[in-house]
């Protein structure tokens, strides 16, 4: 709102398109991380997982490094790889009992390592027409990637609302011990949630590849903290049990509007990060003030 007042360009249709398009990848990643946050866990693996899946997809679809041309199958494999990495985080959490913070940090490092191995010194550029078109072709003014993100949000919401996986993820954040007492085996669900999140990151990696036209090891750089920021700004609690995919979608839009708005009104690049941080803190503070009651615990 403020930006709209400060900058006429901000209000333009193109800019709205731009914001929505730019939000696509973050939306998909945030969708995945929301499920993990809902459980009260945290996930920092997106950077590594996205890197690995970006390299995988760029080496499987038509590209300049090898003769592969698997098209959709290649994309599916990349998403499945993300899923596998998610599984790995989940297994480390439930079997080795490593807190998710560390488990996912470790998996992120592994993902980056795998990505570097696949990279092998030469940048793979994609020539696959379909994957490239995702970022370029438009439908109703928005790029295909944006529609894919919208579909992800819808799927995420359906999972959250209508599947046992989604509801249990929510319940685990609310009272994990109660689930155990009720005879629910939570471990498989935890692993499944991480795997689901991993699949979203995998798709995110594919989307970045489509945008950049090349598989980058750094494809997921910075998405880990941005996604958490977006989810939290949207109202998801880091302690779990509250929030959801729709909340996160709103959070993503807010964060993107903010980033875009700061560039539009010409805030010095030095200050941009700082202003963003300040606004995030302010947003959360404003959100918690009405709920400030009782001997409530804030960690």
């Amino acid at each position: 709102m403020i930006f709209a007042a400060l900058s006429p360009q901000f209000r333009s249709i193109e800019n709205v398109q731009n914001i929505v398009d730019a939000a696509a990848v973050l939306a998909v990643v945030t969708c995945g991380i929301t499920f993990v946050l809902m459980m009260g866990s945290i996930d920092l693996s997106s950077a590594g997982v996205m890197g690995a899946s970006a390299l995988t997809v760029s080496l499987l679809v038509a590209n300049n490094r090898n003769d592969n041309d698997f098209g959709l199958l290649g994309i599916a494999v990349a998403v499945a790889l993300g899923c596998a990495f998610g599984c790995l985080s989940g297994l480390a959490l439930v079997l080795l009992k490593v807190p998710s913070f560390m488990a996912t940090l470790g998996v992120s490092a592994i993902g980056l390592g795998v990505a570097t191995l696949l990279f092998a010194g030469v940048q793979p550029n994609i020539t696959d027409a379909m994957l490239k078109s995702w970022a370029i072709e438009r439908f109703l003014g928005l790029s295909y990637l944006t529609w894919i993100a919208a579909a992800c949000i819808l799927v995420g919401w359906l999972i959250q609302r209508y599947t046992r996986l989604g509801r249990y993820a929510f319940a685990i954040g609310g009272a994990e011990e109660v689930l155990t007492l009720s005879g629910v085996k939570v471990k498989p669900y935890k692993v499944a949630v991480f795997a689901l999140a991993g699949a979203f990151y995998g798709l995110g990696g594919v989307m970045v590849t489509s945008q950049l036209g090349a598989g980058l090891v750094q494809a997921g750089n910075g998405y880990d903290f941005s996604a958490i920021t977006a989810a939290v700004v949207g109202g998801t609690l880091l302690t779990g049990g509250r929030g959801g995919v729709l909340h996160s979608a709103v959070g993503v839009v807010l964060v993107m509007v903010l980033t875009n708005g700061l560039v539009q009104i010409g805030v010095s690049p030095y200050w941009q990060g700082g202003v963003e941080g300040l606004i995030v803190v302010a947003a959360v503070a404003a959100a918690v003030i009405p709920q400030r009651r009782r001997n409530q615990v804030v960690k």
Partner: protein
Amino acid sequence: MSVPAEREPTTSAPVPALEVRGLVKHYPGVKALDGVDLVVHQHEVLGLAGENGAGKSTLLKALVGLVTPDAGEIYVRGEAVKLRSVVDAADHGIGMVFQEQSLVPNLTAAENILLGGEGGAVRRGVYRWDVMRRLAQEQLDKIGSKIDPLARTDSLSFADRQMVEIAKVLRIEQRSQHPPVIILDEPTSVLESKEIETLFAQIRRLREFASVVFVSHRLDEVLDVCDRVAVLRNGQSVGEVATAGAVPRELHRMMIGSTGSDDHYHENAATAVEAEQPRLSVRGLSGQTFRDIDLDVAAGEIVAIVGVHGSGREDVCRALFGAEPTTAGEIRMDGKKISLPNTRAACAAGIGYVPAERKTEGMVGPMSVADNMTLTKQKARCSGPFVAPGKQAGLVDRWIERLSIRTPGRDTPIQRLSGGNQQKVVLARWLVGGDIRLLLLDHPTRGLDIGARSEVYRLMRELAANGVATVLLADSLEEAIGMADRILVMNDGRVVAEVACPNGGKPSPLDLVKEMV
């Protein structure tokens, strides 16, 4: 695990629904169960009584597969079984309502009821909300509860949540083809008397198609609702009593091995209050859930506040401890105006608070008994700014002895103690400093056995005799009447009545109930 086949009835006597023989369970430093025998017949309500730490919860947890016994057998309808998990137990038709409520707060009531056994409500991992609603409604109808199955659990009242728990436990009927055994571990300790009546009606109804095991420290309740009472002491079965014609005293004797005193509330020890100036004087205190509270408590006086759920009395207590913001009003201690921006200030003013939610607010579970006891009072354990371990240890040991707290040692994490003993440690926290002037007790005897209760009451009397002012949110009206010198009745955030309650001139519970609603 397959459902055990019904045994041919060889004799005319029906097979007991559940039988336990020689159950043993060791914990580091304690023998929680020491060869317990127990029989639960079909269609009976069995009471289980015993002091704090007698092993009741441990026994029950063994029956639902949460605790693996070191030795002994469990027979379900004559069949020896090994129960490895809650699911295992549910498959055998055994379900439990736990001592602490166990519902997922951010799910709907329906989901909670069906949790872990959704049946037709979830097909291939996909929810069918309409089916879920119907199935949950069936369960709720069974116990006659009127709540909306799709309401979020944390929006329900405490009593309604208890109903949800019972509805949830009844689901095990669907899992085993047999009449279920339903275990209720202290379900009444957090309920109001009206809600207790409803619950008892439920229990009597359950008897038609199930067996019930019921635990409570209120012996009159036990005798009221149960057919038979089994008594545990120190992890051993010490006998059982048919309730017809039994009196609480007899039960109590079995529990502790000797006759208790008649004077439950130690009314003889009550001291006369001579109030020149009130110790605590509150004028026009208002907060989010209460308004215009006036309250005077003299040194040595016990003032009880009664009211129904949501009357705001708990928040008043917290406000007096600086744990809840106030919007107006003034608080004086011994005539001097004080402000209570935080709990620290209250402690400094000589105010102590025992919260009702012991597990989450009263104690720090993983920390030792000693640390829990000395968390607040620095002088008690420090010389200068530094902790003096010897001083602390001696002090703690003496208070453990003084309040007969049953613990393997002062370094044991408090969460390993039984509920009653935990509560004693929490109380002791305010006493170790020796400078307490006002005690705010929120349900201080919740979950305590009759002996421990009696001790807490005596403690309160002794403190009063030494000039400590006490505000009591009692567990029951009887307790309020028994202990208090004066009773305030709160309703909807206001003090609506004040009833004098001197020795010899006690009001009846009915008088109070009239004011409360």
